[in-house]
């Protein structure tokens, strides 16, 4: 298993893999030809708008819909009193993976219960979106209010430990970390906090739902096509084969479109209730109120070391939150399992449940905020020791996985730091705090380690070779704008030895062979495994045909002797094109089918995790300028050097890594969801008040990758979607510490915390 892919890889010449290939959908998107979920026209299309609860907990006692119904163009107002019932959300279970796709456990409009401030309690369906939204503003629910728990800071002391499961361990104890900390000659013991954050994909969540009897077609902005289909079939009690989910274009996901949220369910429900095709495009505010975001956290990191900086104790504990109505625990301390060799390690993650919209996946859940605390603490330890922070990390670079002792499939942090230090000019750094200036600006430089575990799931892929030499790859993968389909086309072109123009990708459709959802930075590797397997099968079939053809130059040749190139199979002395072989055999196409097995995936994953640690990693280098009067922090330079194995597409991989860093800069300096501690209401549900970085906040980001294949992964590739955000906030915090002498433990680092 572990070396299979490395052997397979050299067979195909890498003509496209690694190159900066333009996205296949670039033209459709730039010309506006691409239709997103809210852009599909249907005759008779109706529009829906949500009515959000204004209490955090309680029940709806009545809904006055009279004024809303009187608005011209209103078709219906659905509430718990008149809506057709959905089936309840299934209990989350590893044996029914589509159950994990429930954004919340709420059975919308089948219950009068309110679980959070902002929960949808009614839906207006109208002839125009304007009428629907206006009428929604006129719906007047009455509530019986119940006591609610909404204040994370107040509830945090009541946290309970997360349960560990075999697919995702939580907590660890190795040696006696507390005792080692107490006797360590040098130590730091710090308490961090990170705020809740919300999703702000450029495309707000949207659904267009069309019923035809029991058949349902849904145009959906999702990063989980196959499970969304299963989930909708289950919730609406119709056969799965009659449900089709189409999602060829998604305007960004980041985890926020990985689950099924209220808008999707209620669009489908409204379409069923009214007998009309229904479009529900969430407002930006609607996204905040109905789609989860990143949990807040409090974290403690305590490190003990000897005078030479060798760690003797590593303690990392966290509290994060889920919700009464769903959400999942985050593995906040995950990176601390893997980063530093310490004989004594104590890790634990705890959770509180609040009456808020449930948390959900958001780019590197766990690692994004966990690395902020761990890597800030390592930096602070370097100050205590008077040691260069890179040197401190190198002295604690482990030979094997510190928790569990697994072998690293691939570990190149030393190389990443060496290359990064060179590119960044780390040597120019004056180690003293506040010593570097650029004019009046204080200048600071910081580093932090990026780390994200690599997953490999199972994708079904069909590959079809036509008589004209074209290759059609069919896989219901998710393309959220990151170039997923383009990367697979490059892989398929190399695997079959055909020009990229000869490859056609079919994706984003639940009628296609299912792909795992786009999550955990696993999609490219998972689908690549399927494409490689399908390509190998296809070549075997073609080879078998050729060997039976009279006069074929491939007769008597074993497949291993042949190279796929120039649209056919060749050896040094000659060969035949696919078109020639298929024509000779009288075939109009040859097809290869690879079916994913979920049980096999689970078994393989559990086996691999016992002996092997796979991850993408990197070294983040950040330079900040800090105004000495006002303490405004501006990131002025960035170098990120990553070990992400083989890079498939130089352009899109760099964009993914860069995008992760930008999101990390936002987390470091400005992003936070403000939740009123009295009402549980999100106070800043807009791009004006929730501060994502704007162009002026983002400097040129130098992204470099080491481009060494991981021998245990398909083509040697590791996912690039999430590792970029990890370590990023810590690199900023560490640079601020260097510029100002001040350690900010509480994100975001706004100027009031430095004044």
């Amino acid at each position: 298993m572990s070396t299979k892919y490395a052997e397979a890889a050299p067979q195909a010449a890498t003509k496209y893999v690694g190159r900066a290939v333009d996205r296949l959908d670039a033209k459709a998107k730039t010309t506006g030809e691409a239709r997103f979920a809210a852009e599909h026209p249907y005759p008779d299309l109706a529009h829906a708008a949500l009515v959000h609860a204004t209490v955090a907990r309680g029940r709806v006692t009545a809904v006055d819909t009279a004024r809303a119904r009187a608005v011209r163009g209103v078709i219906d107002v659905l509430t718990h009193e008149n809506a057709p019932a959905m089936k309840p959300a299934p209990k989350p279970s590893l044996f029914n993976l589509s159950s994990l796709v429930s954004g919340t456990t709420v059975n919308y409009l089948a219950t009068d219960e309110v679980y959070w401030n902002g929960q949808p309690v009614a839906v207006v369906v109208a002839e125009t979106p304007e009428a629907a939204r206006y009428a929604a503003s006129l719906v007047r629910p009455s509530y019986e209010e119940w006591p609610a728990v909404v204040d994370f800071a107040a509830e945090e002391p009541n946290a309970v430990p997360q349960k560990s499961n075999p697919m995702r361990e939580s907590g660890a104890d190795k040696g006696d970390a507390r005792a080692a900390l107490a006797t360590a000659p040098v130590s730091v013991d710090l308490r961090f906090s990170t705020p809740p954050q919300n999703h702000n994909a450029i495309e707000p969540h949207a659904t267009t739902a069309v019923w035809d009897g029991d058949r349902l077609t849904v145009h959906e902005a999702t990063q989980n096509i196959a499970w969304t289909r299963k989930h909708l079939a289950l919730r609406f009690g119709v056969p799965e084969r009659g449900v089709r989910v189409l999602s060829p274009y998604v305007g960004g996901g980041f985890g926020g479109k990985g689950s099924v949220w209220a808008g999707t369910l209620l669009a489908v429900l409204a379409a069923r209730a009214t007998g009309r095709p229904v479009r529900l495009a969430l407002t930006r505010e609607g996204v905040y109120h109905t789609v989860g975001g990143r949990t807040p956290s409090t974290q403690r990191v305590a490190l003990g070391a000897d005078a030479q900086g060798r760690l003797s104790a590593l303690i990392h504990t966290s509290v994060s939150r889920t919700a009464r109505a769903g959400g999942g625990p985050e593995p906040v301390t995950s990176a601390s399992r893997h980063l530093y060799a310490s004989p004594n390690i104590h890790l634990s993650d705890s959770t509180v449940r609040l009456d808020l919209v449930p948390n959900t996946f958001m780019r590197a859940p766990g690692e994004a905020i966990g690395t902020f605390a761990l890597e800030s603490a390592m930096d602070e330890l370097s100050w205590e020791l008077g040691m260069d922070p890179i040197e401190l990390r190198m002295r604690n670079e482990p030979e094997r996985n510190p928790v569990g002792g697994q072998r690293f499939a691939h570990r190149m942090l030393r190389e990443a730091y060496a290359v990064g230090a060179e590119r960044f000019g780390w040597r120019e750094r004056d180690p003293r705090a506040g010593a570097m200036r650029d004019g009046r600006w204080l200048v600071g430089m910081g580093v932090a380690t990026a780390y994200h575990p690599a997953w490999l799931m199972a994708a079904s892929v069909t590959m079809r070779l036509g008589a004209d030499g074209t290759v059609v790859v069919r896989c219901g993968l998710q393309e959220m704008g990151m170039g997923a389909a383009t990367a697979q086309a490059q892989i398929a072109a190399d695997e079959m030895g055909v020009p990229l123009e000869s490859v056609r990708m079919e994706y984003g459709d639940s009628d296609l062979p299912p792909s795992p959802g786009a999550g955990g930075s696993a999609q490219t590797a998972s689908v690549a495994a399927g494409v490689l397997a399908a390509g190998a099968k296809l070549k075997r079939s073609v080879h078998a045909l050729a060997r039976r053809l009279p006069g074929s130059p491939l007769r008597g040749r074993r497949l291993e002797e042949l190279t796929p190139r120039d649209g056919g199979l060749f050896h040094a002395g000659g060969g035949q094109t696919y078109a020639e072989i298929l024509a000779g055999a009288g075939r109009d196409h040859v097809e290869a089918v690879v079916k994913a097995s979920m049980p096999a995936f689970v078994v393989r994953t559990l086996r691999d995790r016992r002996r092997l640690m796979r991850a993408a990693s990197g070294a983040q280098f950040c330079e900040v300028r800090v105004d000495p009067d006002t303490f405004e922090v501006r990131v002025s330079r960035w170098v990120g050097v990553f070990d992400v194995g083989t890079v498939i597409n130089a352009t899109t991989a760099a964009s993914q890594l860069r995008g992760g860093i930008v999101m990390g800069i936002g987390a470091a300096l400005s992003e936070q969801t403000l939740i009123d501690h009295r009402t549980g209401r999100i106070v800043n549900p807009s791009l004006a008040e929730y501060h994502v970085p704007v162009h002026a906040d983002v400097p040129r980001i130098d992204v470099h990758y080491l481009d060494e294949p991981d021998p245990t992964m398909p083509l040697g590739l590791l996912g690039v979607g999430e590792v970029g955000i990890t370590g990023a906030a810590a690199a900023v915090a560490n640079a601020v510490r260097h510029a100002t002498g001040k350690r900010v433990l509480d994100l975001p680092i706004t100027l009031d915390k430095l004044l």
Partner: protein
Amino acid sequence: MRPFAYVKPADIEAAVRVAATEPGAKFLGGGTNLVDLMREGIERPDTVVDVTGLPLDTVTELPGGGLRVGALVRNSVLAADRRVRARYPVLSQALLAGASAQLRNMATVGGNLLQRTRCPYFYDGAAACNKREPGSGCDALDGFNRGHAILGVSESCIATHPSDMCVALAALDAVVEVRGPDGTRRVPLTDLHRLPGGTPEIETDLARGELVTAVELPPIAAASRYRKVRDRASYAFALVSVAAALQVRDGEITEIRLALGGVAPKPWRAREAERVLLGGPADEAAFRRAAEAELAQATLRPGNAFKAGLATATIAATLRELSTGEDLR
């Protein structure tokens, strides 16, 4: 959106007449604030009087070296005007520090004067807000108020006025020309906006039907600057902003104009600080003393207490720059 009537009058008299006679009429300029608020259901005009066709979109010379700015001059046009950049850099800088390029291309001077607060509780219909719904209370007092005002506040409202342009105009002694049913009157900009007191829903001195037609900028000899401090490099409202003009002769301050943004319900002319500074030395100690004198009257809450120190630091930095010619950025 709630239904409303839309009219586009042909001349100023007609615009004023419609607005004075139609109850619930609102003037529409660039629409960058009014239309947003209508979408949110906060502004609910019955009649929208589109004034963008009126001949109020030029910048003209005044006798004596001042400028008269028509109320419909777009923010981007005003910021780029050579005369403004040469004579009133503080105004050009303030305009460019506001919003985004797209918004500045639409936003008018008159609309900018009358833009409403960005207090999040004002925007959320589920929250208590005396400005939106008189008598309902103020959720900002004990809620999130990091961005809120510390000067001129009341127990009814601590919302800030969000404009950058107005802060510069306050420092420049600008005068607002207003046309109403009874003719034209001129109001000093610093008197245009009201403090909230017990009636935060009344934000200006304008009577029903009165239309802002122009802003007059008197000549100024002193060098001027605008400094905006915010949570990200662009597209964010000011935590604190400072508009300043300073002239120093023989080590003595002979002219000082100082106005603050982000700290008050109206563009805040810092008269107390000016009094402390005028005739004295232009040094760091004086700048800080003056700032502290101005901020002595501040009402601080845990969420926004940092603004006093931030305002002091920003005032000192801006005046230091003006006095030494140092480039602040």
